């Protein structure tokens, strides 16, 4: 934006403006105690992650609707900003919600780069933030704060739980492969930590620039080194191509492939036969046969005529966390400390299973071992019970 040359207002005008502003602010504060609670969704509504954004919002609203559409006895008002998964616009976008709409709580987002910018803005303005997907370790690590919580996972978690499983199965020599970006390297670090703690050794980390999908050279390298097991982190189109290339190279017959859950989530149909039998770990599994999950999936299907997925669960749980906090202060959001304390103390009765919140604001949750069967990631057992992110760098 260009700054226009402007005549400086005279002193009297200035004080008049200031007085008017104070009066306005006072009216506003009064309205806030009794008016609706303002919830700002900053999610991707266009682009590659658009469907994830919609799932999160649907999940969130479903829980609010189940509570009779009210939070702590107060009406709820939604504001929406499309973040386009574009980190360069993130600060401007989040300020639309914080400054223009003056929301009480921010919910967002999918893309880690955007979420980090949101966490910074939330910290600077002391706005309550619930992250319903983005896994960047830093959000509940160095960037952590009492007003920043996450309803999904940290990248470290699915990596670590996969490492535990791989070590338990008796594999000794592993190779890892991922894109050279934060989500990839954080997940791989989690895997390496658990795998080496379990007595294995990671021989080599392979990586390629995001979003390059030319894997053939690296697959040849895997064939040359002959590890006992390969751990991969990819998502979306890259995950489809990697799993297919791995099978086409015949490696799936000789070297088992393990992955974080995102390797096979929402991609199984495209991966087809190549993905069958793959083991991954995540905090959710399709066909998780618990009464809580079945009830949730039924309610979601009835409301939206669509199948719920892990993103819908994360949105649903974001609402649960908020409701727990708001109910604890009976809708009086000015009692911020009591609100966030309640949010940290809650045991969330999630469709994925009950979980608690760590001091750093990240879910302490069971990680499930799943196996790709048909178009489902079928539950095969609990990989790690109540896994807490180490929250390295968090000073809380």
């Amino acid at each position: 934006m260009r700054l226009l040359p402007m005549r400086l207002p005279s002193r009297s005008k200035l004080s008049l403006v200031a007085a008017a502003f104070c009066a306005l602010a006072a009216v506003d504060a009064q309205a806030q105690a009794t008016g609706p609670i303002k919830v700002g969704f900053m999610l991707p509504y266009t682009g590659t992650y658009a469907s994830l954004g919609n799932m999160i919002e649907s999940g969130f609203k479903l829980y609010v609707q189940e509570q009779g559409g009210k939070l702590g006895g107060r009406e709820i008002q939604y504001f929406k900003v499309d973040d386009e998964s574009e980190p360069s616009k993130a600060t401007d976008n989040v300020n639309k919600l914080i400054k223009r709409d003056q929301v009480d709580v921010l919910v967002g987002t999918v893309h880690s780069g955007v979420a980090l910018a949101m966490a910074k803005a939330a910290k600077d303005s002391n706005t309550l933030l619930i992250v319903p997907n983005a896994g960047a370790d830093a959000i509940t690590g160095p960037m952590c704060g009492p007003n920043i919580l996450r309803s999904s996972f940290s990248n470290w978690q699915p990596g670590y739980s996969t490492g535990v499983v791989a070590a338990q199965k008796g594999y000794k020599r592993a190779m890892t492969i991922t894109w050279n970006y934060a989500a990839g390297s954080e997940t791989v670090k989690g895997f390496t930590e658990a795998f080496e703690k379990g007595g294995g050794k990671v021989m080599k980390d392979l990586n390629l620039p995001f979003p390059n999908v030319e894997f053939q050279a690296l697959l040849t390298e895997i064939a040359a080194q002959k590890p006992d097991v390969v751990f991969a982190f990819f998502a979306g189109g890259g995950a489809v191509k990697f799993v297919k290339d791995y099978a086409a190279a015949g490696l799936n017959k000789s070297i088992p492939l393990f992955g974080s859950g995102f390797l096979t989530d929402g991609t199984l149909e495209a991966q087809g036969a190549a993905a069958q039998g793959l083991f991954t770990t995540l905090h959710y599994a399709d066909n998780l046969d618990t009464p809580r999950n079945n009830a949730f999936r039924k309610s979601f299907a009835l409301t939206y005529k669509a199948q719920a997925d892990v993103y819908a669960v994360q949105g649903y749980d974001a609402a649960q966390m908020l409701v727990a906090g708001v109910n604890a202060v009976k809708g009086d959001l000015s009692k911020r400390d009591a609100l966030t304390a309640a949010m940290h103390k809650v045991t969330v009765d999630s469709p994925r299973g009950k979980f608690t919140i760590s001091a750093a604001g990240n879910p302490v949750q069971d990680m499930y071992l799943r196996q790709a069967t048909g178009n489902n990631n079928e539950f095969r057992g609990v990989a790690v019970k109540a896994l807490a992110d180490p929250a390295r760098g968090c000073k809380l």
Partner: protein
Amino acid sequence: MDLPIFLVQCLNAVQYGLLLFLVASGLTLIFGIMGVINLAHGSFYMIGAYLAFVLAPYFGEWYLTKLLVGVALSAVFGFVLEWLFFSFLYQREHLQQVLMTYALILVFEEARSLLVGNDVHGVVTPEWLAGGFQLGGLMSYPWYRVFASVACVLIALGLYFVVNRTRLGMMIRAGASNRDMARGLGLDIKLLYRIVFAGGVALAALAGMIAAPLSSVYPGMGGSVLIICFVVVVIGGIGSITGALIASLLVGFVDTFGKVFFAEYSGVGVYLLMAVVLVWRPEGLMKRAY
């Protein structure tokens, strides 16, 4: 690295390079002959890949027929597109060309999103090309990759033949070296450009169709291809088909071995190659051949 593995990696490099060539050749034709910076070229690759996905149920095992139909459709599409948009761009400055072709990227991506959705889709390999042959003990090499390489070589030869040995090729070369003189001698330059553009689009779409079973189809797939194609075109020398071929193979080798030996910095290799070539030969490896 022992010899068999080294040879397999060389095969990987050649195969990747040839596929790159197929996309980049269309770009270098359009860029070199008509002087249009076509950012939408990656979208044509994407459109080709999605065509392969959408047409698959109708053709089943008639894979080659599907390719031919896809090429015909995309050539017609290119012909119309040139008539509607690109024919207005030749005399404009580069900024306007970039703006319009960028807008086309957005339009094509949205259209893709509306028509096919945002999911990732796999494209099945035809039955007679499924499977692979054993290579170096542990690994098998898919037949489809061999097929893709052979197809690329055949198309490269065909392209060379058309440009250098046919009347149409002569006209294209004449139009490229001096547009006004060629028109003065009675050539229908407008029609010629339209044909070249349609050919360029068809080449990119064909590359997309051939790559689809290897890469699956997903949103934004055109973008990553576009950048590497511009690298190929710039290294090879703008407008040179031979240059594009050499550059594609070079990029294939640098990328493949970069990933193996310098995993952490593999993204840099190709651009380093470009910088070195440009310092050495600012006009690219091959100055325009015609």
